[in-house]
């Protein structure tokens, strides 16, 4: 065993808190190589290094207790000082955003809920702008219907790809009739999902005379 291996083994023994004197291999190596003996003796001495710490004053516990009693709330975890203002700002932002959204949504709902009164008033008002409003409303209705038709056509073509038998032979099965009606109801089903603006346009369209039964008027 060379000197380096000898010292590494000594280190391992001391890491494990074992005495080098108890290791037979080291003792044998030290017997064979006298120059390793001082090293073995030095590590033995280090392994049994005495604890030379002076005695601690006996009143330490009393002093700690005195200070502990003066602590205001020892069991409460301290909150970081920056956390309170941050939480207040975050809460304010959340409340302000909620109020803004609620106000916006309420405005749109008001337009949807009472379109007929507004529209009737507008229609009855002898105003030169009235024809323009009617024309714009009709244009909006036309756009909406065009969109619905496009949507229906898209669904129809998609459905013909997915379920090619659906449009083949007519059947007397009542569920089949429901299926055929289902396709027509797609735009109506989509309507609640649309945003407030298109909902308002739809309601306006229903309220303005002449746009309710638009098919009869050639739309």
């Amino acid at each position: 065993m060379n000197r380096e291996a000898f010292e590494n083994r000594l280190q391992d023994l001391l890491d494990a808190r074992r005495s080098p004197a108890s290791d037979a291999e080291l003792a044998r190596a030290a017997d064979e190589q006298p120059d390793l003996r001082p090293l073995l003796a030095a590590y033995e001495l280090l392994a049994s290094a005495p604890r030379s710490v002076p005695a601690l004053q006996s009143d330490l516990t009393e002093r700690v207790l005195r200070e502990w009693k003066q602590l205001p709330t020892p069991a409460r975890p301290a909150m970081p000082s920056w956390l309170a203002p941050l939480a207040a700002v975050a809460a304010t932002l959340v409340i302000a955003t909620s109020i803004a959204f609620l106000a916006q949504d309420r405005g749109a709902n008001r337009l949807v809920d009472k379109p007929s009164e507004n529209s009737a008033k507008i229609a009855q008002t002898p105003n030169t702008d009235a024809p323009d409003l009617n024309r714009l409303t009709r244009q909006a209705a036309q756009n909406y219907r065009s969109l619905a038709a496009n949507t229906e056509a898209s669904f129809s073509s998609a459905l013909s790809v997915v379920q090619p038998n659906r449009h083949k032979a007519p059947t007397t099965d009542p569920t089949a009739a429901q299926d055929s009606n289902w396709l027509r109801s797609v735009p109506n089903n989509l309507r609640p999902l649309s945003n407030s603006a298109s909902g308002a346009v739809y309601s306006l369209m229903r309220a303005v005379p002449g746009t309710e039964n638009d098919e009869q008027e050639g739309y």
Partner: protein
Amino acid sequence: MHLLGERSRERDNLRDDELELVRRCLAGEQAAVTALVDAFRGAVFGLCYRMLGHRQDAEDVTQESFVRALRSLAGFDLTRDFKPWLLAIAGNRCRTMLSTRKRRPPMALPAEGVEDHLPGVEEAKHLGEEVELALSQLREEYRQAFSLFHQEQLSYAEIGEALGCPVGTVKTWVHRARKELAAALIQRGVVEEQRHESRGV
């Protein structure tokens, strides 16, 4: 295997006892605070003394460490061991004090005059003094790591928490400390002398 299992059980029991003490302290029980301080004062003072090398400073920091630990006890993670947490607090306080001192901590034992006691004193005391003298000439990190491992019987992990450095670094410091100490003891003829004395007996 059997011995390892037994040690593990002993450690678990010790940990349970420590956690029970912590819970009672959190409940505001004065007797538990007394028991906690009594249980760990030796370890904390030993660490502070090894790091600061000054008795009065070590006592002050020990007291301060306990007060800080009790103040922060509600934030202690009960799944962890209490002793490393407490030693980490003490280590932080020692580092703060060392940084304010701006001077190398003096060792408790004087470097001079040890040789005067060589003949005629008890062998153990003499060897202890020789080790302390060699220790005082080591780099501060080596000295602290060695003392905490061998003289305070802390584990590498506990020393790492106390000194605020990785376990691998602590191990390296302890190994280098041993190597330098062994060389110093051989150079001073301490171990040769010990051998002669043993033969003489």
